[in-house]
């Protein structure tokens, strides 16, 4: 169902070369995103159908239709303010916390609409893991930070918690650094360690999709590299949706890349295609740093 929307299509780009997208948007015309054909073969876990979002009067997302391939890393890129974080937060309905948010269209997780009134938001969020731009560990011990999602599920058995903690920390490549200080406050960790701790926290309860919102923007190059390695590793197990401003990073860690512009999905395809031979000139200009 709805395949018509995400069917690879020849969009604007193939017909009229040149920087046209901005003009089309300004003119108020609608357009379809350039979606590369390779995506059609991928099994989907999450998809958006003409999804729009308003913050009060101002519209932040315009008819986003895209699917997220299962077990792959997908990067969201685009100039600042284009709605990447908004889209990410729409997936786990964190936007519900914002005053005056209104949505239209659908987002489906495994075929279930997540904006259905019958959906229990809490259960939805438990199936997704989220990591924020700024590391935000709780002011508790490292151990308690990691097992927090289990604790709120009512898990009290020490052994289960300890095992899950170790596994998550190992996956987040943090175990060796903190295994001797699990009882100490997480606020004593470095920024990079804190971010990996947040990743451990996000994956400890085995989410189906991991949402990462610029996880490396507050980190130095070395820490960034560790997180990138980490993302590549965990990508084998989880589906990852990552927002990033760093083109090299997107190219390195992601299988697919979506380029957003002014609240619209503009081009979406395999990363090497987006970064080496994009269909639209806007995409090319953006990824080469000449625009945005």
């Amino acid at each position, binding site marked *: 169902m709805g395949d018509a929307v995400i069917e690879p299509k020849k969009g604007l780009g193939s017909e009229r070369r040149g920087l046209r997208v901005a003009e089309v948007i300004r003119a108020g015309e609608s357009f379809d995103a350039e979606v590369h054909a390779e995506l059609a073969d991928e099994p989907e876990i999450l998809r958006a159908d003409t999804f729009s979002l308003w913050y009060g009067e101002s519209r932040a997302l315009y008819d986003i239709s895209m699917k997220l391939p299962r077990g792959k890393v997908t990067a969201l890129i685009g100039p600042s303010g284009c709605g990447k974080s908004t889209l990410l937060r729409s997936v786990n309905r964190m936007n519900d916390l914002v005053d005056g948010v209104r949505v239209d269209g659908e987002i489906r997780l495994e075929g279930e609409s997540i904006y259905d009134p019958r959906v229990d938001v809490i259960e939805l*969020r438990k199936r997704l*893991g989220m990591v*924020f731009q700024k590391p935000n560990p709780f002011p508790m011990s490292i151990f308690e930070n990691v097992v927090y999602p289990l604790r709120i599920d009512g898990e009290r058995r020490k052994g289960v918690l300890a095992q899950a903690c170790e596994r998550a920390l190992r996956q987040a490549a943090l175990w060796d650094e903190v295994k001797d200080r699990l009882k100490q406050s997480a606020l004593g960790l470095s920024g990079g360690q804190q971010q990996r701790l947040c990743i451990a926290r996000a994956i400890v309860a085995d989410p189906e999709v991991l949402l990462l919102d610029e996880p490396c923007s507050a980190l130095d190059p070395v820490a960034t590299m560790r997180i990138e390695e980490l993302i590549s590793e965990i990508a084998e197990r989880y589906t990852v949706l990552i927002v990033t401003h760093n083109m090299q990073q997107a190219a390195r860690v992601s299988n697919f890349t979506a380029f957003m512009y002014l609240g619209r999905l503009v081009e979406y395809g395999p990363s090497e295609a987006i970064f080496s031979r994009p269909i639209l000139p806007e995409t090319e200009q953006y990824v080469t740093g000449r625009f945005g």
Partner: protein
Amino acid sequence: MAHASGRRRTGRLVRVGDSAAGVVITLGGLAVLGSMLAICVFLVGSAAPLFRGGDAQREPDVVVDSEVLPSVIVFDETGEQAMLVSPRGRATVVEIGAGHAWGTVSLLPEGVEARVLEVSASTGEVAAGFEGGAFVGGAVRSGYALVADAAGEGATGLRAVDEGQADRLARAARFDHADDRVVAMEPAEGGARVWELAAERGEVASLGDGLAGVSAIASRQVSSRERVTVAVLENGRAYVASARSVRRLDGGPARERVSVTPIVEDAAVDAVPPRWVFLVGTNADVVMVWQDGRFERYAEVERGVWALAERGRFDDGGTRLTAAVAALGGNAILIGDAEGRVTSWRLTSSEGAGRDAESKLTRSISVREGTAAVTSIGVGRRDRTVAVGFEDGSLVLENLTSGKRVAGWKGEGGAVVAAGVAPAVNAAVGVHADGTLRVWRLEPGHPEATWLSLFGRVPYEGYDEPTFVYQSTGSPGSEPKLSLVPLIWGTMKATVVAMLFAVPLAVLAAIYTSEFLHPSWRKAVKPTIELMASLPSVVLGFIAAMLVAPYIAAWLPGVIVSMGVVPVAVLVGAGVWRMIPMSTRRRVPTVALTGLVVIVIGAGVALASVSGDAIDAALFEGGEHAAAGLRAWLDSGQGSAWPGWFMAMILPAAAAVMALWWALIVTKWNAITDGMSRTSAGLAQLGVLAVQILAVLGLAAFSAWVLTAAGFDPRRSIFGPFSQRNTLVVGVVMGVAVIPIIFTIADDALMAVPKSLRFASTGCGATAWQTAVRVVLPVAASGIFSAIMIGLGRAVGETMIVLMATGNTPEMSLNIFGGFRTLAANIAVELPEAPRGGTHYRVLFLCGLVLFVMTLAINTTAELVRQRFRKRNAAL
């Protein structure tokens, strides 16, 4: 402006403004600090003199006849003259500061010499015993008259005036008692000053065989009609003479009829007679005291029949008693011994006793431990200050109740054979063995105030045990009782009850508004609650006294029951709410939900007030009116303790059941309900609630039964006689007064928790409640703590509400239906009537200082915690 250099520059005006602002801010800060310090210094300065001793200033010595050394010194009211009375009945009048005696006369008729004569300096009662066993009791009341037309010109020194002269003088001075007897006069400007003794002399009683003389004697007016005199003869026999005045039928002056009763008739021949005898206590028991420390107490068991009631010792054996006087209006005996100790003894009745049979002479205070033997004790008339003379010539003035030393000095001239202190403690004299009379003018300071009397248990007159009492302005006869402990207790009681009420409400409200309430609603709610803080406390006090107190009094059982019923109603409401499908629930707007909650609470209150009557009837055999049964139960102290325990135990029982539920059962239960549909899960939930309520009631009933069976009665602790303006009323209304403060600061603390933490928690799939409890609350805990502390500070200092909503009785009980008095209310009530600079006035300043220290400590703790909080949050 174009700068040649192109560099940016700060303008001069900006710099000047900057430094001016700096100076102003610094000055302001210093002014605040300075005024705080000034208030502190002022309070300390006003209260500190309480703890200082008095000042003594030496006046010229007087030399008296060392052959007839006085044994008792009686001061006049003003402390200007003192009468020294010798054991033979000679009285010498001395003017303080004049340096000489007016002269000496006999208190007894010309030519009559007493064998023993006792004068009580505290009551002016005189008793004289003679050779041959005759004795007489009476009293002297001294006063002054400035006689204008007396022929004082030629009069020098003292002289006894004859009958006719006395008459003239007395008339001139408007004394018209026929038998007033002027014994001393001195010329003064425009006339003569006259020391006038209004002597009431009783009929002389004669007893025994006429062979033994009287060796010890005491006399006391026990009622307006009856005087009792006790005499011990040398041969050990003792007699009591009761002189009753009988009005004559023809309207003439009353006559005395004396009846003599023997107390001890069969004394052993060689027995040593007692050295002193006293009439002690309300029933005027006879206490005989021997020098070796023994005493015997005889009580009148029925009219005219005396029996030995008690035999004991005033010491631990081994020391000789060297001085003994009656004190505190005949209610106490002061005993001095050879080792320099002075102890005060009082007749106390042991608990639960009917009549004297259970009474005992007990030591109430050790006044002083000296180094030399006590040779004399002088007591004042009103004040509890005594003068103690020692063998080494030293004299010490000390307060009997507080044990505070007013003044003391050491003089040459041998032992102090007689010591005296003026009623207002403004003068003291000591007579040394060589006849020198040392005279001191005193500034007594504050003899009643010591650390012990202000903060400790004190053995006051009329109390069986040392107690904490605050009674600043007693009746003229009773001493001021200045313990601040009941006031501190009242302050804490009010605060604790108010906080028990306010803290849960305010903190939960803050959590609700910051974590659950829609932001647009919060914008309206917060200023509204903050507006509540601006409600003048006098208005709240008025509401408390006029509305809340009568309401609670009239609906007492319902009010108490509602404390249990309303939470249960809310829980039931929540259970029903859970049964409604999510999609329906989501459609209910917040306003409607709030309305629903209000309706549920209202239903709870209605149910409680309806069932209040029934419960009152069932538990307390209540009558036609709602509160009658419970009120009667509380006030009478009768009936079984069980119903009270039952009501008191419901809350602890509920806590226990809930703890048990959360600790042991809830996980299993959740596993069971997870598989159910919403409706059946909700129904099951309600069923569990019913079981829980039954368990709570059962547990409460059982524990109440156990406590009752064990003999405990709540009416001796948390319950007690009901007064309309009680602790519960203050708790509720003062709670309302502090809720806005706690709410505002707690809400700020919660809002200060970084949003990112909430997002992190929500992103993990936590509910709003889990986020609030597990993440937000721990981070905001210190802020909430400081909010509570600031509310506490406000409650501690709150004046108007407690002033208006309690009876202001400074009692110390746990009774939540009783009154109390707080430090702040005490100051407000009493400061207008406290004479400036007096002990009472300074005690009130001490109250202020204590209050200041309490609030300062609380606020400082709050501030310290908040500082820590800030530091910790900086890391987030």
